[in-house]
């Protein structure tokens, strides 16, 4: 029976990492194989799901056979699968990198006990986060999404506080409060939506949604919550300190994956589930916020002295791009803006993970991340610097990266609609990104001055290759475009299971 096997595979991305997390917590042995095995199995499962999706089209599964009002529904369609793929890929990369990272720090003989403890807590939390993310993408009803959002923030906050530095703890406390506020706003939104129709299921909601004050209030509250969690412009205050002060693998996870969860939901709500509630004015507001975010984040990134803070502010700026896609998606008939949005999410996800990992390696070697003192590091770790550069190409949106494809689609979308003014912001943001990426590259290319400040140990392969591979994936994402399009339009031609209105 095909449905049974399909549903079986759909549950695995949630169950497996959860089980893995618990096992890692109980096992308490520092070792690579257990988390890595789970990350790899997760990747395999997602690949298997890709095949299923291509053959059978969007999949639905009711857990335990309970019917929709009470039961929990898992839905897998093109966009969700792409997000799962991104998570699985970056997850595998981060898992390898994190092992190398902790091993390197433990072998440095400086407070090895502390680093060992950090690693012991890292694995269960990280696998827990992976389970929450996968659950988020698969969930088919708005309340279940709330639960996964909360799981996500709990594990993300705990991970962010893991470094134990007072700054990091303060930052993650703020992060926790911000994301709690977001969750509660989202929950209040659920109240309004349930009140008017008595359904939570995304598919049912799409069918019954009609404009009304209660629904609008619900959507506004949910969107505010998600915007806060995605660090959209005026609500981004919590992000830079939390991301910049965490351990390197944690920063990579937070910036590359966690942010994407809520952004993806937002896009999905606005253009799939609640599409009939959306007005152009609201989209323009979101787009304006996006423009402000692009510039604010970009300019602040330019002003930073520390590499990781720069990368964190660049995330703020990049979130702006995703928001600019909103007004352009409204009139879009060819779905190219959906494609653009997902392309940018995929490209930015891989690139940001790679970038934070590369920055982390530089930090490990030099003991700091002050940019002007990093000169000559290219000679010590050429691959890492190369990975950083390639990831930067993505942020700038230069070819052949996925960011380029996304930007091209956005631009043509803008001109198609006659909304050419967005294009100016898109291009200017790209130039800003170029400015802050090359602000880092410039000292890296500088010939070393004076004695080497780096500890002489060679960079382990586990620290060097994951960022390189991920940045290359992001760089060559444009070439995978036909495959991605095939996934989006699998079995029926619509991007999402229900199709756009």
């Amino acid at each position: 029976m095909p449905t049974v096997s399909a549903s079986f595979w759909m549950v695995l991305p949630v169950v497996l990492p959860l089980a893995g997390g618990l096992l890692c917590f109980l096992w308490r042995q520092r070792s690579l194989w257990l988390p890595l095995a789970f990350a790899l199995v997760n990747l395999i499962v997602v690949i298997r799901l890709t095949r299923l999706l291509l053959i059978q089209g969007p999949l639905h599964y009711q857990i335990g056979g309970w019917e929709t009002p009470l039961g929990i529904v898992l839905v897998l369609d093109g966009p969700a699968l792409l997000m799962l793929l991104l998570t699985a890929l970056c997850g595998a990369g981060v898992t390898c990198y994190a092992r190398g990272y902790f091993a390197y720090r433990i072998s440095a003989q400086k407070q090895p006990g502390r680093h060992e403890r950090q690693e012991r807590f890292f694995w269960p939390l990280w696998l827990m986060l992976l389970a929450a993310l996968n659950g988020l993408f698969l969930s088919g009803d708005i309340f279940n999404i709330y639960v996964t959002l909360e799981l996500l923030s709990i594990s993300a906050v705990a991970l962010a506080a893991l470094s134990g530095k007072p700054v990091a703890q303060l930052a993650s406390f703020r992060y926790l409060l911000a994301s709690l506020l977001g969750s509660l706003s989202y929950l209040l939104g659920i109240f309004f939506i349930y009140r008017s129709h008595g359904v939570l299921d995304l598919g049912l909601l799409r069918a019954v949604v009609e404009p009304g004050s209660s629904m609008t209030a619900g959507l506004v509250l949910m969107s505010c919550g998600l915007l806060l969690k995605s660090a959209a412009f005026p609500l981004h205050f919590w992000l830079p300190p939390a991301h910049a002060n965490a351990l390197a693998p944690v920063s990579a996870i937070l910036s590359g994956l966690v942010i994407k969860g809520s952004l993806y939901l937002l896009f999905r709500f606005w253009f799939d589930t609640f599409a009939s509630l959306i007005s152009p004015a609201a989209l323009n507001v979101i787009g304006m916020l996006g423009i402000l975010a692009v510039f604010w984040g970009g300019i602040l990134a330019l002003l930073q002295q520390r590499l990781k803070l720069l990368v964190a502010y660049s995330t703020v700026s990049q979130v702006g791009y995703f928001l600019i896609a909103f007004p352009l998606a409204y009139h879009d008939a060819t779905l190219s803006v959906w494609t653009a949005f997902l392309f940018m999410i995929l490209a930015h996800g891989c690139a940001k993970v790679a970038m934070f990992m590369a920055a982390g390696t530089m930090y490990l070697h030099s003991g700091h991340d002050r940019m002007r003192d990093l000169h000559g590091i290219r000679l010590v770790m050429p691959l890492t610097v190369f990975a950083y550069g390639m990831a930067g190409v993505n942020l700038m949106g230069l070819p052949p990266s996925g960011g380029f494809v996304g930007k091209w689609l956005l631009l043509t979308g803008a001109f198609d609609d006659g909304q050419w003014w967005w294009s100016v912001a898109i291009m200017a943001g790209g130039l800003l990104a170029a400015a802050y990426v090359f602000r880092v590259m410039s000292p890296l290319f500088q010939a070393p001055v004076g004695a080497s400040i780096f500890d002489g140990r060679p960079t382990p392969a586990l620290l060097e290759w994951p960022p390189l591979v991920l940045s290359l994936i992001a760089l060559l994402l444009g070439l995978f475009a036909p495959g991605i399009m095939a996934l989006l339009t699998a079995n029926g031609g619509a991007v999402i299971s229900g199709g756009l209105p």
Partner: protein
Amino acid sequence: MTVLFAYKLGGLCLFFMGFTALILRSHPLKKIMAVNVMAAGVFLLFIAMACHGRVGVAIDPVPQAMVLTGIVVSVSVTALALVLACRIQETSGGAGSSEGEHPPQGDS
């Protein structure tokens, strides 16, 4: 109906009171409490919604399930927040050189 309306109004009031406190108060403990007050407000709304106020019609179980789940989530989040707050208090208040000997652990 009026009682239910009062419940709902109360829920909303709680939510916004909590929100105001969260913004205005700077002490970590007060902020945590504010978040809990907000959560309580939302739960109250849900409970009020579950009861139609009509005689003979079964009470909708879904909001109650949601509230139960919400309470579990809120308890664990509060625990995490408290651990973090304590840690911040220790490191910023005490001698604090032994930074992060015991990293906070997330419970979920």
